[in-house]
């Protein structure tokens, strides 16, 4: 398949997410009219062009560089990706749709997706599911048929039926499914390693740790970048470049590492450009039942405090509820006692652990899929406690941001291991504190830095290609973080350069294993697996078509701190992500389309301003004798995004 063609298909990718949704009854016949004009919209926000664009493969990205190839209107197959190969095909499957009922149709299995199409009804019904989203497969055989249940990592389940093949040697197509759905468990490679799309932008270059620290003004007189972890010997889950206080030599770092869980010493995440107050992150101190102390660790925290001249206090935010922190002492962990750490104040943020969050989201799924009980919707939602968890996380991040911003005090954040709740808190507070992270590129850097390089265990939490669905390590920590970001964007709609579709796209590809970005558990593993060499970065895909992801309302509030309202009264379930599969939840208007029109409008105005400025400059030059120096323009330039 030639490049341009496959490129287009990529454009359609995000939509594939939303399409499978079921019941998007997409009509193949009317499609190509809108195919050209429509963006891939995973954001279920399209209204105007209705049913046509629900089929993913029909969306051609209007990219001026790529040749737009009109698709045949009667095209039946999804547009395959580079190196996507068909594995199995069956004509006689039945999909038990929870809304539309049983549908007869054709199933196709590739090494990337499961594609079902039924022409039983008009318009044709299609379902396109990347295999990466499969969490669990249940096969149930009766004497006549095989019943197959697919439970997804997002909020969907599918059920298929297939008659036993007449040929006893032939197996059902679904028997082959586990092999491709769980490649890791079956000794195969994830699809990301096969996928070799070339994009104009290289997403692997987005994040450069040293450049990011330089942006923050580091190294400076109080903080230095150490290479002690260059070979991941100090801490294997940390990145190679770490920022530590200047006056702590590397050998002392090793002693501190021995006192901190998994060697995750306090390191700088963010520094306030004015007050020099810092956000530092680490894991719990290994205090244990006996209340062990570490001179080096105490000195280290003192050094963090001293690095900020504005305050003589240090706040330690322990993300856990007090009881869990105490319980951790039994396992050798614990928390800093205020006796040992002079001038430090310990605050518990009451955020629950990954198991609680997993259960909570499971309950959300129960409440929204397949059917919603309208009469008790809010009560059901409340009983999931999901929004309460969101609130606690946002409240924690808000307290951190407030201490740093208003109190000019440095903070240390940790939970038990320092890679789940800690990551959520530091990244959210940085998002509130620093407008740079609220741009598209900045947000990518934030994820690369706080989540990927500092070792959020994506492989364990998501279980890419792993059939072991009962693994207790699974948890939607990252989904929860993006949900929090979405809540922020709702409260400050013009403070973020990216739109909702950007967030949904990230979450979509968290599961699909199409891009290498979210593979592996930490930087060390990623280098060992040569992920950047062998796979494509999600940011390559996104940065190659920024106009899809840009928020037209964005105002560069880079020097503003966002203090969201963290009351349940102002938090909402992110229905356009969690319930986007439900056809009756589809938004009535194409917000996405509207956004693009607004961006165009803005560009047009910008152009007019530029023209006028030129004209003004010309005229003032010509009449310079009268007004030698016309008053400086009183207007700050506005950046364009288009």
């Amino acid at each position, binding site marked *: 398949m030639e490049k341009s063609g496959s490129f287009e298909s990529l454009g359609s990718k995000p939509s594939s997410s939303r399409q499978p949704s079921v019941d998007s009854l997409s009509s193949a016949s009317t499609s190509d009219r809108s195919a050209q004009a429509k963006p891939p919209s995973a954001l279920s926000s399209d209204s105007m062009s209705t049913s046509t664009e629900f089929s993913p493969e029909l969306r051609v990205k209007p990219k001026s560089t790529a040749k737009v190839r009109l698709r045949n209107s009667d095209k039946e197959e999804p547009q395959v990706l580079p190196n996507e190969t068909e594995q199995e095909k069956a004509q006689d499957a039945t999909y038990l749709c929870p809304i539309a009922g049983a549908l007869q149709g054709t199933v196709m299995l590739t090494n990337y997706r499961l594609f079902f199409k039924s022409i039983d009804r008009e318009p044709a019904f299609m379902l396109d599911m990347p295999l990466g989203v499969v969490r669990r497969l249940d096969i149930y055989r009766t004497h006549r048929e095989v019943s197959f249940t697919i439970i997804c990592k997002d909020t969907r389940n599918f059920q298929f039926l297939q008659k036993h093949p007449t040929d006893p040697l032939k197996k059902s197509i679904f028997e082959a499914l586990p092999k491709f759905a769980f490649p890791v468990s079956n000794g195969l490679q994830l699809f990301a390693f096969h996928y070799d799309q070339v994009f104009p932008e290289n997403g692997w270059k987005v994040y450069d740790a040293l450049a990011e620290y330089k942006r923050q003004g580091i190294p400076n007189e109080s903080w230095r970048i150490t290479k002690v972890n260059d070979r991941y010997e100090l801490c294997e889950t940390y990145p190679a470049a770490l920022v530590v206080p200047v006056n702590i030599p590397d050998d002392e770092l090793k002693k501190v590492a021995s006192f901190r869980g998994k060697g995750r010493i306090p390191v700088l995440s963010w520094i306030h450009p*004015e007050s020099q107050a810092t956000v530092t992150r680490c894991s719990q101190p290994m205090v244990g039942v006996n209340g062990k102390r570490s001179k080096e660790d105490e000195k280290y925290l003192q050094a963090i405090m001293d690095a900020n001249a504005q305050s003589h206090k240090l706040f330690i935010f322990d993300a856990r509820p007090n009881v869990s922190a105490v319980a951790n002492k039994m396992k050798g962990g614990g928390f800093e006692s205020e006796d040992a750490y002079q001038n430090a104040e310990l605050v518990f943020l009451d955020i629950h652990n990954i198991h609680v969050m997993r259960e909570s989201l499971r309950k959300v799924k129960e409440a929204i899929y397949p059917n919603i009980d309208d009469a008790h919707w*809010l009560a059901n939602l409340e009983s999931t406690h999901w929004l309460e968890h969101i609130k606690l996380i946002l409240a924690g991040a808000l307290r951190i941001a407030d201490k740093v911003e208003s109190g000019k005090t440095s903070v240390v954040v940790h939970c038990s291991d320092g890679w789940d709740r800690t990551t959520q808190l530091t990244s959210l507070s940085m998002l509130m504190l620093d407008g740079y992270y609220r741009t598209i590129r900045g947000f990518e850097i934030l994820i690369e830095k706080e989540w990927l390089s500092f070792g959020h265990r994506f492989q364990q939490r998501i279980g890419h290609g792993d059939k072991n669905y009962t693994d207790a390590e699974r948890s939607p920590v990252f989904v929860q973080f993006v949900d929090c970001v979405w809540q922020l964007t709702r409260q400050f709609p*013009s403070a973020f350069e990216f739109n909702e579709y950007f967030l949904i796209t990230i979450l979509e590809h968290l599961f699909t294993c199409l891009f290498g970005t979210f593979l592996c558990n930490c930087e060390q593993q990623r280098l060992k697996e040569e992920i950047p060499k062998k796979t494509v970065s999600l940011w390559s895909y996104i940065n190659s078509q920024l106009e899809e992801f840009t928020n037209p*309302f964005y105002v560069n509030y880079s020097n503003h701190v966002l203090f969201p309202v963290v009351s349940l009264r102002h938090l909402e379930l992110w229905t356009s992500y969690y319930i986007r599969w439900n056809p009756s939840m589809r938004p*009535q208007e194409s917000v996405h389309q509207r956004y693009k029109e607004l961006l165009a409008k*803005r560009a047009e105005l910008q152009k007019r301003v530029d023209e006028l400025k030129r004209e003004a400059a010309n005229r003032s030059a010509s009449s310079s004798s009268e007004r030698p120096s016309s008053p400086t323009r009183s207007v700050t330039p506005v950046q364009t995004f288009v």
Partner: protein
Amino acid sequence: MLTGSKTTFKVRQMLPDIKERMLSQSGGTARSRDMFGLRCLPGECVLQRALMVRKKLTAREGRGWMSGTLFCTHFRVAFVPQDAPKPDDNTDPVLLGDHDVALALIEKVVVVGPNRTKLVSPNSSLKFTPEELLLYCRDMRVICFLFDRLTPDAQVLEITYTIAKTYQPLKPGSVLSFQNAALGSVEMKQFLSNRRRDAHMNWFESASDWEQELERCGATTWRVSSVNDRFEMSTSLSRFIVVPQKVLDTELKKSFAHFNEGRIPRWCWRHPRGSDLLRMSSFQNNIYHEKDDIRNLEMVLFGCQSSLCVVVELGDELPSPADIQLAHSRLRTLCLGDVSTSVSVPDDKWLSTLESTHWLDHIRLCLRKASEVACLLRSGHLTVALQEPEDRDMSCVVSSLVQVMSDPHYRSQHGFQSLVQKEWVMAGHRFYSRNNYHRDNDKEEAPVFLLFLDCVWQLWFQFPSRFQLTADFLLALHDSIHLPLFSTFLANCQRERCKRSQNLGQSYTPVNGWRDALPPDSPSDPSDPPLPPVWDWALQYGADRRACFTQPVPPTPPLQPLLNGNLNTKPDAHRPADSAPGSVFLLSRGSFTCPANLPPWRSSASGVYKKSHRRAPSTENVPGLERLLKAWSLTATVGPQGPADAYEPLLPLLMGPCMGLWRECYLRGALHAQAFSHPVSSNHLHPVERLAQDVQQLKDKLAQLSPGTDLDPPAVTPESRRTDANLNQNTNNATFLFSASKPRSVGRAAAPPASVSRAPPPSSRPGGKDFGGSNKHTFLFGHSSGADGRGDSRYHPLPNAKLPKSNGSSLAS
């Protein structure tokens, strides 16, 4: 407009210095109505004022605090920000400024002192000096003033007492004095009597108004009847009603008796595909029927259609006014908290408590019923008659919702105002009783109209670009209901509005009876102008606010003023096959029946009347009709309609997660929802606004440089301005803090260049000056500029958050 330049001020002010200044003012011929920065209405007296007060700003206003002076007059509590521009004396009076509260809107006055909270009643005395003053308003705002330590204690106490004494908790009689305080002065009366009515909307007062509507809808087979001209047939109906052309007035007259309150089936609206929407009250059972009565009824029902009539019963399925009242009061308590105990629902119970108010359920029911009716109508060529026992509450809601859904005209501001005139004001919704302004009729009180506004808001929220009006407009209307100043809401029917205008016999009378509020024994001065209608928005809001009432860019399908009545481009496949003419079906609880005895008298008695000239309804049509309704649920699954057909009804999604809470309305006062009160300044211009400003300034500059050239500035600016408003109003996002605050700043776009001039360099940025010295940092780090390569493009907040409003006309013009 303001003609009288007489400035006679009655000042009952105790402070001597004020008296002196008053003297000096009234001595001259100055037209100034300005008192210490407060622009008074003619005749308005300042009773008390307090300096150095800070007002808490809502999220919409940008949060944080604003310093200024607090006034209490005998009409309002006014707040004038410190840096407010000098009021322009030559403009027409606006009743309430942006920061003011009418005394009649205040429900409770609460003061917060050190460690305590106290509800202040007219007689209470305070044993402490309040630090905060909270005004709980009927429109669900809570306004919070903070007294500075520099505010003299005496002033604090005095103004608290003054407000407590004068705020007029609604009771019989207080409405009148409030009206007098606001509009009673000679100048004000003169001013009001010179106001012209808005000619862009249809007031449905005269026969020609109705004829205009018939023409607009293409309803050629209907006529306007003046049979009720003297309200003899029905006291609650309007003077003019629309009936089938073929029915004569004499025949019509016989029908009135058979309906509750004489509210016979009347035409409301015609769908472009030729379906008619009718309204009627329930049948009177206990009346002797003559043979002709049935024929007359059938004539009225089938007057213009030969096919089907579906009677939609609204009584059982929709919430009763009592339900609505209960739900609304629960919602109110939930959103505002219990004032006296300052207990509010804990956050973790918020969702379930919200659900248990049933407010959202009621909205859902109304929208569902309206969607059903809209689906029936769009199939074409049938008559849908809404029947409610009294025909004065839920049928107003449903019929107007159906029209908002189906007719783009009613989604514009003027169209919507006409709709309210038609389906609520003229149709006799009991605004006066339902609002219970006098607090003398608690049993009847029910915010049916507010429920309707919320339903419209839900539609707007789901289809923002299909509306020309905005949520701001809905909010303004919501708030105006609580102000007992408008003839629109101060009567129960047209007859009451006319009653005091004593000219019942004339063929046309101005009907805005201002007398209604007067106690019956009070002498009426015939020269008094009527109370203004609520639609005279300029009385209430400045141009800035009014500019936000409409989307400047019209919705994508252009509004067509004339719906030529027989649009039948798309014959509906589901349309029931040629049915027996005159079949009547009853839609009740979601299923159709063909009742043998719909008009109750038909089956009764001797059987003489059974023989109607119409065929008995045949059951075979039922499935066809049910399919029409299914078409709706199908639409819900298939997805939104195509954009092309402007007459496809907007069918809202009604699942639990789709029902939104109108936060900008109900949670405006939720002070407890604020975690930190840091000002998050949103007073920055939107990029597009800034572009507009850029363009304007450059043009000005060009004009300066080359005085001879005519640059025709308005060509560009209005467009850019409009785009901005569009940005903010056209998306769902408009509900949220930032963009919600945007439209307000539209009018400020044209600040004088000096104030927008390049902000001070980062180092010297006065971080704390926002909102008068609250030293919370809104912005913090001046990254050493250029560090991120964006130093230049950063927008520095203005030192003063509030831009002066002067010069505002340069853009607006």
